[in-house]
Structures are given as structure tokens and as C-alpha cells.
């Protein structure tokens, strides 16, 4: 049977407990509050950059965009400048729409064999909704967190906080992004688990980041609304880290260290996992190239000469027959 998600779940729970035990029983605040986060950031930066460089070091021998709209050809035929861009501007727009709105995923359809005879394809928008909700909520949450790392807090971040808690009456402020993040993650997990095809293709490495992110979101929400932590102290610790004057304020609760440990794990895991789609999406040759190969020659850096069958060799073999058939030849 399929225990892949269980392994991942157990692993994330174990991480949770390690941080809890480490802080509560072993008193390793220094390790979980300073060493691990620093190590994680170093691994993240080193891993991320080397992966990007590794990709960038590979050649792009051919210009192979997936053309998803009318090409540029005759003047009076309307080109689809976004889905089949022939200029850099078009490519930038196409990429921006991919990255900001997941345009390709928006096209998603679902196939069904109706009454065993007719194939039907219906628009299937939920994956797009869930994915977009998760990513934007994640982005908002991460950006909001910058208030812990800045002093004074820049205006845009305060503004974002305001916007994020817009529908709020009373205290503490509830951030919509946190709720959306958790809901979207749960949706993505359930989809993975319940849809037989998606479950079949899923690896342990697909469940793990979901659980990890759920763990991060849960511990964050717990800390904010239920097991209150000294926020001022937490900010002190964070500021210590970014100013390279690390310190461990006494009043930070263990839930905070759990949260921080899970985030550190995410950072360290990131460059070696599928999460690198974050970097890869920018480098995808089927999306980031213009469809102008017939207008502008693309150069392949490793293009090497190959053995061909020349006309002379061809004529040498067939000359008699060609002459008999009245075909012109170079050498009589």
C-alpha cells in the first residue's frame, strides 16, 4: 500500500518533537535559535545559487518554445503575441503571466469518457485556484515576516499587514494570508491523497514539503492566536540574527523554536528538492524563448560537423539511371 505520505508525516512530526525536546528538555536554545538558522540560510544560499549556476552552465542549443498561439507570419494574420511571442517583450509578458498568474495551469482540463463513447474535456480550475492561493498567501506571509527583520519596519510592509487583516474587528489581528495558506495547503494535500492518478504519481518527496509547510503554518498560527509568545522577544532574536549579533532572549517560548526549526528545515531542503521550480520556471526553454527561429538564427555553441551523404556521392551511385531518365547530372 501507499505509505509515502505517512513517512513524510512522521518525519515532520519528528522534526516538531526534536525542536520541542531540544529546547524544553535539553535547553539547546542556542542551537535551535542561532546555529541551525544560520546553517540553514548558508545551505539555502549556497544550494540555490549553485543549482542556478548548474542550470545556467548547460547550453541552450536550440530555440524550442512551445507555441500556443498563432505565429507571426503574414501581415494580415493576427499573431498571438503572448502565447507565441516573437519578441523579447512578448516573452517577458508571457513569463510574467506564467509566474504571477500560472497561465498554463489556468488552461487545465479534465478528461472523461462519457457513456463509454464520447470523450469530454471540461475546464478544471481547482488546481489553479488552490495553487495560486497557496503561492500568493505564502508570498504575503513571507513578506509580512520582514517586520521581524527590519527596524524601523518599512512602510510597504506595514501597509501589507493592514491590507492582510482588512476584514478584522477586534484583537489580535487575524491575517487572512495565514488562513488561506493553511486551507490551500490542506486542499493540495487532499487532492494528492484522494485523486487516484495524482496519488499514483506522488513520491514521498511530494508529501514532505506539504507537511512541512502545513507544520510551519500551524505552528505560526498556534503561536499567534493560541499559545501566545513574547513577540518583542522574538523580534529581538530575529534582529540579532540579521545584524550578526545573535542573542537568546529568555522569554521566547518553545513553540517559537519549533516554528523556526521547521522554517530552517524548509530552507535547507529547498535547493535539493522540487521546490527549485521557483528558480527553474525562469529558465524553462519552452517558455522563455521567442518563436523567431526562422527570422533570426539561433547559434548552438556545440554545433559540430557531421557526416553527410553529399550530392556527388549520390550522383556517383545513380548517374546511369539519372541519365537514362533524362535527369540532369553534374558529371557526364
Amino acid at each position, binding site marked *: 500500500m501507499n505509505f509515502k505520505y505517512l*513517512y513524510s508525516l512522521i518525519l515532520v512530526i519528528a522534526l516538531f518533537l526534536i525542536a520541542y525536546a531540544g529546547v524544553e528538555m535539553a535547553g539547546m536554545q542556542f542551537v535551535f535559535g542561532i546555529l541551525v538558522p544560520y546553517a540553514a540560510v548558508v545551505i539555502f544560499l549556497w544550494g540555490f545559487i549553485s543549482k542556478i549556476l*548548474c*542550470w*545556467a552552465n*548547460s*547550453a541552450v*542549443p*536550440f530555440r*524550442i518554445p*512551445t*507555441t*500556443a498561439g*498563432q*505565429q507571426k507570419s*503574414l501581415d494580415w*494574420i493576427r499573431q*498571438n503575441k503572448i502565447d507565441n511571442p516573437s519578441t523579447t517583450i512578448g516573452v517577458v509578458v508571457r513569463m510574467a503571466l506564467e509566474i504571477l498568474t500560472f497561465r*498554463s*495551469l489556468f*488552461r*487545465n482540463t479534465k*478528461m472523461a*469518457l462519457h457513456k*463509454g463513447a*464520447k*470523450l469530454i474535456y471540461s475546464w478544471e480550475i481547482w488546481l489553479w485556484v488552490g*495553487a495560486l492561493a497557496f503561492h500568493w498567501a505564502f508570498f504575503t506571509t513571507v513578506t509580512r515576516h520582514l517586520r521581524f527583520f527590519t527596524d524601523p519596519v518599512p512602510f510597504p510592509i506595514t501597509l501589507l499587514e493592514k491590507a492582510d487583516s482588512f476584514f478584522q474587528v477586534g484583537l489580535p489581528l487575524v491575517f487572512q494570508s495565514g488562513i488561506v495558506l493553511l486551507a490551500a495547503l490542506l486542499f493540495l494535500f487532499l487532492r494528492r491523497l484522494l*485523486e*487516484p492518478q*495524482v496519488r*499514483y*504519481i*506522488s*513520491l*514521498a*518527496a*511530494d508529501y514532505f514539503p506539504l507537511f512541512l509547510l502545513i507544520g510551519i503554518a500551524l505552528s505560526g498560527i498556534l503561536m499567534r492566536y493560541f499559545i501566545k509568545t513574547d513577540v518583542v522577544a522574538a523580534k529581538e532574536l530575529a534582529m540579532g540574527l540579521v545584524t550578526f549579533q545573535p542573542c537568546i532572549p529568555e522569554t521566547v517560548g518553545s513553540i517559537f523554536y519549533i516554528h523556526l526549526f521547521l522554517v530552517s528545515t524548509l530552507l535547507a531542503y529547498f535547493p535539493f*528538492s*522540487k521546490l*527549485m521550480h521557483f528558480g*527553474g*520556471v525562469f*529558465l*524553462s526553454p519552452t*517558455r522563455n524563448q521567442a*518563436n523567431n*527561429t*526562422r*527570422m533570426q538564427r539561433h*547559434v548552438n555553441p556545440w554545433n559540430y560537423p*557531421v*557526416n553527410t*551523404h*553529399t*550530392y556527388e556521392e*549520390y550522383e556517383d551511385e*545513380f548517374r546511369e539511371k539519372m541519365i*537514362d531518365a533524362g*535527369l*540532369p547530372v553534374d558529371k557526364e
Partner: protein
Amino acid sequence: MAEDLPKAEEFLANIDYKVPDTAWMDTPAEIRKGMYCYASNPKSVEYLGLPNARKWNPLDDDWQLPENWQEIIHNGFKERLERFRSVKVFMDICVRCGACADKCHFYIGTGDPKNMPVLRAELLRSVYRNDFTKIGKLLGRAAGARKMTLDVLKEWWYYLFQCTECRRCSVFCPYGIDTAEITIMGRELLNLIGLNIDWIATPVANCFRTGNHLGIQPHAFKDMLDFFVEDIEEVTGVELEPSFNRKGADILFITPSGDVFADPGTYTCMGYMMLFHYLKEKYGFDITWSTYASEGGNFGFFTSHETMKRLNAKMYAEAKRLGVKWILGGECGHMWRVIHQYMDTMNGPADFLEEPVSPITGTKFENAKSTKMVHIAEFTADLIKHNKLELDPRRNDHLKVTYHDSCNTARGMGMFDEPRYVINNVVNHFYEMPANTIREQTFCCGSGSGLNAGENMELRMAGGLPRANAVRSVHEKHGVNMLACVCAVDRAALPPLMEYWVPEVDVTGLHELVANALIVPGENERTTDLRGEDLPETEDDADE
């Protein structure tokens, strides 16, 4: 048609989308008759100088591989990761969201989960993780990694020849992961140890030697076109004089040899010839055919990038030798992906040619100014737009036409409106198939990328099901009886597909429709179309 195929209804009833109980890594591929193509003939492999020429049979346990085949694959993989950023990125970033899963016609037609593009790619990705990533080496199967074994190799071979490199999956993937690209790379690796199929290897060898896939020698090529001259004279009363290998012609014409060889492609070929004759009579158009570059298609593309380049080289070489100004290309699918996205890069720059200009309308084909090769649908659409063709679409009134976008001109080029414009000008009854099955979402004929053999008919009927099903829907709704296309593989593959799934529908190329409508100077009144079928009564009082 293959006798052992079940009835169409039975075929449909047998498609099962339930996933197996065992994980895919624990479900070895079972190579099944009807689903695979025969192994390559050693003579063809040898002629091309490709590795490990020998007689072998995919059903045998022993595939007679070189002793160090694992090392060859590993090193080949490594080399390709450095040469192709596409492969490296696609190996790393798939999130297995499954958006591509039900987009593949082979998955739709077989229900086999390994035909989901994502799993097809995972077949290679799992080995990539094991061989090239730290986390894969460290965690093994928990990270989705597995070692290359003979079973894995057989699985690769089986499923990489169940992908027609159609790119439909890549339209839907949020990162544009193109499983076709992965298949191309996988087949290239397989070729390193001599695991090709004969339906690809032998046409490639033929093409290398005689200039075309079918192995037609120069005199025979000319004979075949001469036959068409006779056929055309019978229908129109006009005598044509195609020219061959003629130095100093303005334009070189290259089309897939399939058009010269088998119905209904032959009618398309007659269509080209009639169009050229018309243009010559009216405007002094000057074009030549070549027997040396007598193949537009390129099965080398389905072998390796290198083989593709070796075959493609003939086009520019011949254009240079003949001293033409530019090249006009016939109707084909993968031919056009190669010309559009690869040719100039591989074998250019074509600085000995001129930027293509239509000698009749003066239109500059800006979009082809570097490669110097124009698609005949672009060329003809321009002629019609400028009113240069005298057409009587009523001669196609017995046809209710729909149009199949070939995968490669769709997703590897983006030619959608040119052929539609032409059709709408030569035909009175045109109906589109459902939106999710045309244009960039078009479904493959099921036989592309060298899979149009006879022995894998079950696979072809499965892969072609979504296309056929869409044709059926317009057949039932509008009485469509003709499926038009701009691809020679389509013209070979769609007729058996239609015969199996929608027997009421026939297949035609674009320029057959053009030629039926074209009023050639000096022609007799036509009583039949190019196929010799009686034309409908044309009403003299134009009532529209």
C-alpha cells in the same frame, strides 16, 4: 488493417483508467504485441554507422546489449545534461501536480498510467536522481531514485516509443516541461546502445542514401511524378511539365516523399503540381523539384539530434548547388518543426540564399528571412489574399470539411490561421472540431514520431482515439465527411484511424482541396475531382 484488433466499441469498453495496486516502480513493463514496433534492421543501422547493429527482438530476454551498456547510458545522460539545459531543468523541477496527466492521447487511449507524461518523464528522472543528484544517492527510493537495470531499460524503450513527441503536455505544464524533449533525449540514449525501431531506422538509412525515406531512386521519383502528370491530364485535360534538379531555377520545392508514394498524399502532390503549373502559366513562376533532396520529413529527428542534422543537411546543400533563391516546403508536420526550430541552427547560416519574396505578389516573408524557407500554406494564403488564384470552391461542395492541426505545425511553430484561411477560400462547408481538440490543444494522429508502423496498430488506434472522437462529434453534428490536414504522416496515419473509428470520414491534404477548386488555364470542364469521383451538379445560377 490489423485483423487482431477488437471492434471499436469493445476497444472503448476496455479502456480502464484505474491505477494498478502496485506502485509504478514495482510494476515492470510487459512488452505486448500490437503496442510496440519491430526492432531495427541491422543493415540500416550499419549503413548509418550507428552503434550496435545486430538482429534482436524486443520479446527476447536477451537484447544483446554491449557489455558496458549501463556505463554508455550513464555517460550519454551526463553529456546531454550539459548540452541541453531543457533536459537538466526538466529533470529537476517537476512538482508532480498531474496537470499534464490526462493531456496525453496515449494515456487517454490506453489508460496506462505510464503513458501520463509525468510518469513517462519519471522513468528517466528516477535514474537521473540516482545517478546525478546528492539527495537521490543519499535517500534512494525515498527520494524517487532507482538504479538502471535491464527491466528499467526495457521500460524506457517500451514507453519512449509510446510517445509521439507531440508536446501537448507541455502546453498545460505550469513550467512548460516538454515530455517530448525528454522522449527525444531518451531515444537518443537508447540509440547509443542500438535500441531503435525499424520503422525509424530503415527510412533514415533510405533517406541518407536515396534522399527520401521510401528509398525511391531518382529515376523512379521522376516516373512517379510523370504518372501524376497523366492523372492530372485525365481530370483536367492540361499537360504539366514538372522540372527536376534544374540549376538556376528561382525556387526549390521540397515535400515529404510520402506525398509521392501513397494515397491520399498523392492527390496533395498533384495539388502542388497543379498550383505550380497555374502559377507558371499565369505569372512565369519558376520552381524545381529535387531528387537528391526529395524528402521533407526527417526521421532522423526521432533518432538523435545528430542524425537529424545529417539528413537535414541536404536541403541547404541542394539549394546551394542549384543556385536557387529560396526554398518552398510542402505540407508536413515534423518536417516543419525541424525546419522552423532546428534547421538554421544546425546547418545554417543560409547566406547563399535570398530573403524569400513571393515572385507573384511581392510579399516579403519576413518571418522566414533567416532560414529562407517558406511553408506552402503561408505561400498559398498570400496568393489567395492577393486574389492571384482563380478558384471555384463549389467543386468541393460534396465535401464537408474539418481540419486537423498537426502537432508540430501547431505547438512547434504556431501555424493555425494560414491553412484555415486557405480552406475557407476553397471549400464552402467547413466546420471546426471542439475547441479543446484543435489549435494549440490539437490531438495527435497517434502515429507521429516514427510510430506509424503496421505491427503496432493497437497502439496507433489508442493514440488516435481522442482525435477520432473529435472527428466523430463533427461528423454526427454537421455530417463532416472529410478530414483535412497539412502533414504527410497524417495522410498516411489518419485513413486507417478513420476507417477504424469513424469510417464515414476520408482524409485529404490542403492542396488537394486547392487543386480541386483551382481553375487552371486551358482546362476542360471538370466532371470529377482529383480522385476521379464525380463532382456534384454545379448550379449555373450562382444562388449565394
